[in-house]
């Protein structure tokens, strides 16, 4: 059995490069309250836009982020949105992610304030589906997003894992 010290068998280095930044404009929050897994709420998506070296366009209205506040204080995110590129390709984007931080940061979010993103952890794993040949590379990549909560929604800087 190979060992972890066996350099030749080690997986490739994990590196990344910017894929796109997506800005999401949220509609008013819908609160479902306490459900068996935690406290559930839903943020409908009203629109937005995205831009990266290889694609840009807008976020179509519809979809949203199904939030679950867990008993350990971590917020689980579960987003589904549709992106439309400037050359009219449709891209289905989902992510699952986590957001957590000190109590004063979470309180500031609830007051709609802007908080330095270095003060909280907001990371996601986006996935993409498209039938457009020009963007088929999106079907084949694993990605990571660094999120920022904004008063009107969120901004996600998404890197492709190379």
């Amino acid at each position: 059995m190979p060992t972890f010290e066996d350099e030749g068998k080690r997986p490739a280095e994990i590196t990344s490069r910017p894929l796109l930044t997506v800005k999401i404009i949220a509609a008013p929050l819908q609160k479902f309250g306490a459900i068996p897994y935690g406290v559930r709420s839903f943020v409908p998506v009203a629109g937005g836009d995205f831009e990266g070296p290889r694609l840009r366009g807008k976020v179509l209205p519809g979809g949203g982020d199904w939030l679950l506040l867990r008993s350990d204080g971590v917020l689980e995110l579960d987003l589904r949105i549709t992106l439309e590129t400037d050359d009219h390709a449709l891209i289905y984007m989902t992510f699952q992610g986590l957001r957590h931080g000190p109590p004063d940061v979470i309180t500031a979010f609830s007051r709609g304030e802007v908080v330095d993103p270095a003060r909280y952890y907001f990371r996601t794993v986006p996935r993409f589906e498209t039938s457009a040949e020009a963007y088929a590379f999106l079907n084949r990549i694993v990605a990571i997003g660094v999120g920022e909560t904004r008063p009107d929604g969120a901004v996600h800087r998404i890197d492709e894992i190379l």
Partner: protein
Amino acid sequence: MTSRLLMMLQVVVSPPQKLGAVPHGTRVIAPIMSGTFEGPRLRGKVLGGGDWTLSRSDAVLELDLRITLETDDGALISMTSFGLRHGPPEVLAALTRGESVDPSSYYFRTAPRFETSAAKYAFLNRLVAIASGNRLPTGPIYTINEIL
């Protein structure tokens, strides 16, 4: 994006269960019976599980792994990961034949998630991670990084 090493993980797979063509692609289940993991903050052995792989029509292999980790101090950790594997046809054919190939010659990346009730390892419940894999004849080896 910045990251740091969480652990190296190696799993040993049993003979694959080939289910053949299913509505989403070609399904092959790789049972996992054992393995080991080691990182700066945790180490131990793999108790078992499997990887439910799906070969899609675009020649990408989707990975859907579920295993149980047991740390050397007796904590149980549930690990799941979603991932993708693809590469040049000759590289994939060599992997299928059970040969070792250069890990940089194909794409094998996953996004693991963890669950545990052990307070010492509760940090695993709160992190997002990325792994790079290499398929060895006995089973894959992964470098798993925590996204900081």
